[in-house]
């Protein structure tokens, strides 16, 4: 495929430095262990060769390993930035070709985060792809970086990584009743009750619950006073339970967090958008389930109207959330009906059904899209009470609008029914979209040959029921057009189909989900999504690396190794071969004995011509080069490289 197209040669690992904001209390984080597990996750889940470098003070350390696991900084080094930069560049030159990803962990010289800026600047100007992942516990720690760290290099990709706290207690009264029963049924209720009370006081359980309750109620009634600040749009969110470096027992939340982080570091995040279409958005339920069953991760969700409901229910509660939506379609339907005059009852129900969670607390960022009535702009909500955000996203006129603060919000459909572009902005490399708006149901009409007096037609056009019905169907037609317009940003576009469409009939939600689950269009979309996900796991077409496990020099399909005639009809190496031989030659000179070159179907030049070329490019002597000519019928003329340790 595309054998005549060439791509940039990538011979060096990407380098990512993991730093923690002083406010994130890096001293309390087991960063070396966390980064090590992150590297293992990248290796096992994404098949990238990964290495970890720890930046430490050079004090009483054992002899360095090969490749080195540490950058050893002598005490009293006057300029940490320059020293670390030079060491990283040295590692990049020596070992960059042997890895896909190098993670740099700095807690050895920077235990409290006070030298973040110096280390950040050390990444500037390296001859490889560079990025910094910055751990934060509060959005302001990221928002204030110019005030705390000063100006940071624009040439280094930066990525906020949020360390979320534990999920807040949702149904306290219910939990208390259960705990009360346990205390009463214990052998010594009095001492059990005392212990329970002491624990509650120590953890400020009731105070936290009271604060949360105030935040919930105030937000439901449109106040933004207690609305949390949003994380930056592209933030990777981690939620660790217990010690994240403890391998046993395996904690699913920790495994999920490392997976999300691994995909974030390597730019392989997957975003799923679910379009708003009333009850038809129930097609999103089997869509998510089948994506998960196909092994496709979901890192970010977005949706408008009921599509946002599906996304947020899943992000908040997982499968339980999807089931809750399925079993409560009638409840939502009644809520929508009452929303003709007041949507507070539905807001309460949505908040309860999502465990009163805040969008900023979701480990899978969920973007609920609504439209700002005053400006006609889409509003991408990533923080605030989920139930309120979902209600705003579903406030389709003529149902009442939703106020958040003084902003009057309408349904997300008029501005972004299928929010795909925002997923790219949030860092999704692969966008999978479910377009839920159906084609309107067609009804039989009388043939033109049947005579109907004009006044009857005129009477029909004035019929308010028929006009309302036409308006409703016009909505669907317009929304479908709008949603189709979002296809350009989606890598996979699932145009949902069901046998009968009924966007306004909520009782039909389960039937819609069932029909979609068994539809050919969903099966096709899942197959395509799987192909796209597999493609995301591939290397760059121009990638070349040394696999230290096999000693092979592995090259992507766009790497051209061979010979060509220059304009003066003299043989020379292809430019890819020239660069790669230089890199591999340096590696062999430092860490191996011989470079084996298998010449496959190489026509003239003769050995007398090409051997000096290879020697010059690799910088190796003839004794360090071993040529093996081979004829492979049908294969192109090229050569492959192998390291002899």
């Amino acid at each position, binding site marked *: 495929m*595309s054998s005549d197209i060439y791509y940039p040669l990538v011979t060096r690992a*990407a380098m990512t430095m993991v730093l923690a904001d002083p406010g994130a209390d890096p001293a309390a984080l087991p960063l070396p262990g966390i980064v090590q597990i992150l590297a293992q996750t990248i290796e096992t889940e994404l098949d990238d060769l990964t290495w970890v470098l720890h930046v430490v003070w050079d004090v009483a350390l054992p002899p360095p390993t090969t490749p080195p696991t540490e950058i050893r900084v002598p005490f009293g080094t006057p300029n940490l930035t320059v020293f670390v930069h030079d060491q990283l560049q040295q590692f990049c030159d020596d070992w960059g070709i042997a890895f896909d990803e190098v993670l740099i962990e700095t807690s050895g010289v920077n235990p409290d985060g006070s030298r973040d800026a110096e280390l950040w600047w050390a990444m500037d100007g390296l001859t490889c792809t560079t990025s910094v992942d910055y751990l934060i516990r509060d959005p302001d720690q990221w928002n204030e970086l110019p005030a705390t760290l000063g100006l940071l290099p624009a040439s280094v990709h930066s990525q906020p990584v949020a360390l979320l706290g534990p999920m807040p207690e949702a149904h306290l009264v219910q939990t208390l009743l259960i705990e009360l029963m346990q205390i009463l049924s214990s052998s010594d209720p009095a001492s059990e009750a005392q212990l329970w009370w002491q624990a509650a006081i120590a953890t400020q359980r009731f105070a936290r619950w009271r604060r949360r309750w105030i935040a919930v109620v105030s937000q439901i009634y449109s106040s933004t006073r207690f609305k949390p600040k949003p994380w930056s749009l592209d933030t990777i969110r981690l939620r660790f339970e217990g010690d994240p470096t403890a391998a046993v027992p395996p904690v699913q939340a920790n495994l999920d967090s490392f997976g999300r982080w691994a995909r974030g570091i390597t730019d392989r995040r997957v975003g799923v958008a679910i379009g708003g279409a009333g009850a038809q958005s129930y097609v999103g339920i089997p869509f998510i389930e089948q994506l998960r069953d196909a092994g496709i991760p979901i890192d970010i969700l977005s949706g408008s109207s009921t599509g946002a409901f599906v996304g947020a229910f899943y992000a908040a509660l997982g499968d339980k959330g999807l089931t809750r939506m399925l079993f409560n379609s009638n409840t939502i339907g009644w809520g929508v009906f009452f929303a003709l005059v007041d949507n507070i009852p539905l807001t309460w129900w949505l908040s309860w059904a999502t465990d009163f969670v805040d969008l900023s607390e979701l480990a899978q960022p969920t973007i609920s899209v609504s439209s700002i009535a005053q400006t006609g702009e889409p509003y991408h909500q990533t923080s605030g009470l989920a139930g309120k955000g979902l209600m705003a996203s579903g406030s389709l006129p003529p149902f009442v609008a939703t106020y958040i603060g003084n902003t009057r919000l309408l349904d997300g459909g008029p501005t972004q029914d299928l929010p795909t572009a925002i997923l790219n902005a949030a860092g999704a490399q692969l966008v999978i979209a479910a377009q839920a708006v159906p084609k309107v149901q067609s009804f039989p009409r009388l043939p033109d040959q049947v005579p109907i007096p004009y006044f009857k037609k005129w009477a029909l056009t004035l019929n308010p029921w028929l006009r309302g019905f036409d308006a409703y169907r016009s909505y669907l037609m317009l929304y479908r057009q709008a949603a189709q317009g979002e296809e350009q940003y989606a890598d996979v576009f699932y145009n949902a189909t069901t046998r009968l469409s009924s966007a306004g009939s909520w009782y039909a939600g389960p039937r819609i989900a069932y029909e979609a689950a068994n539809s050919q269009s969903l099966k096709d979309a899942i197959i395509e999504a799987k192909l796209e996900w597999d493609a995301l796991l591939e290397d760059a077409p121009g990638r070349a690396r040394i696999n230290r496990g096999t000693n092979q020099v592995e090259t992507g399909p766009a790497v051209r190794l061979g010979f*060509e005639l220059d304009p003066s009809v003299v043989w020379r190496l292809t430019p890819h071969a020239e660069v790669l031989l230089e890199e591999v030659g340096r590696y062999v000179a430092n860490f191996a004995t011989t470079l084996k070159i298998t010449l496959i179907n190489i026509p003239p030049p003769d050995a007398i011509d090409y051997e000096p070329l290879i020697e010059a490019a690799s910088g190796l002597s003839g004794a360090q080069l071993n040529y093996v000519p081979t004829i492979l019928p049908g294969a192109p003329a090229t050569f492959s490289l192998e390291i002899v340790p």
Partner: protein
Amino acid sequence: MRTLAPKPPTPDKASLIRFLLTCPLFQRLTEPDVEPLAERLQMHHYEDSTDLFSRVATPDSTPLRLVAHGQASWEPSNSSEQKGAWMLTTGSCFGLSAINDWACAKKIPSAWPAPDPAPVRCNAVGPLWVLELAPQHFDDVFMHPQGNAICSRLLCMFPTGLNAPRVVAALRSTPQFSRVTTPKLYRLLERAPTLAYGPMQLEQPPEEPEEPEEPEDDDPQQLGLEGKSVTSPALYYVLEGQLTVSNDEQTVSLGVGELGGPGMFDDSPQANQFAAQATDEARAVVLTQASLLDQIRTDPGLARALGPRGLSKAVDP
């Protein structure tokens, strides 16, 4: 929790220079080149959702802005892109229209002679830190003896920004860039200046060397609008006129709205001399292989996104 600083800190000149030299727009400039700009920049802080062009901006009121930290959405009224497709991030420069208007008023030949650009909606997405150059300082910076290089850069980028949605659409229609996400392509275009070809070549000073420049110096951002040819592989998106781009092996003729150029993905740039010429005046957005490589270094997923799906391994249907 710490609170936001009541007054944005003002970075010192050395920090500003160091930062400016890492921005895509000013890459490969020298410290003296950016010094006049660094002396006049002021840090400003905007809250989430701030509309940075809250009214129809007039040239004498709009500053030149450079994102120091944070994100902002950018939506020209004449573009069909959805909100989120075009995002300004650290190092992005905006407010170039004001620079162009200033250059027109000063009768600087390389100013873009376009009518008023379409209104733009630019909103902060989260808190935004911006370095600003106030319009009253344009003269001080750009008329400064050292300010010419930076002025040329900015003027080169103005037409690229105006036409970016069209260029991005054209890039996405190529097999090489079809999988690259839209925000990444807009970011890539921050390294793609608009150059002029044709009659303007005649206006070059006679002391300019006629030989093509060495590849390592062949950065179009350094060439300004004087109409020199890019001598390394590049993609051209023609905005005006007819452009003929050739190397030793082939010649490509490009009209308005066409994207192309031999050898952008060739691996044999050393022997081939690339040249772009126009029979009449022509202007084109130029994206060189070197710019693409620079962007790959700052964008972790870009190299992998190049090329059609399944290029790197056989796809089993």
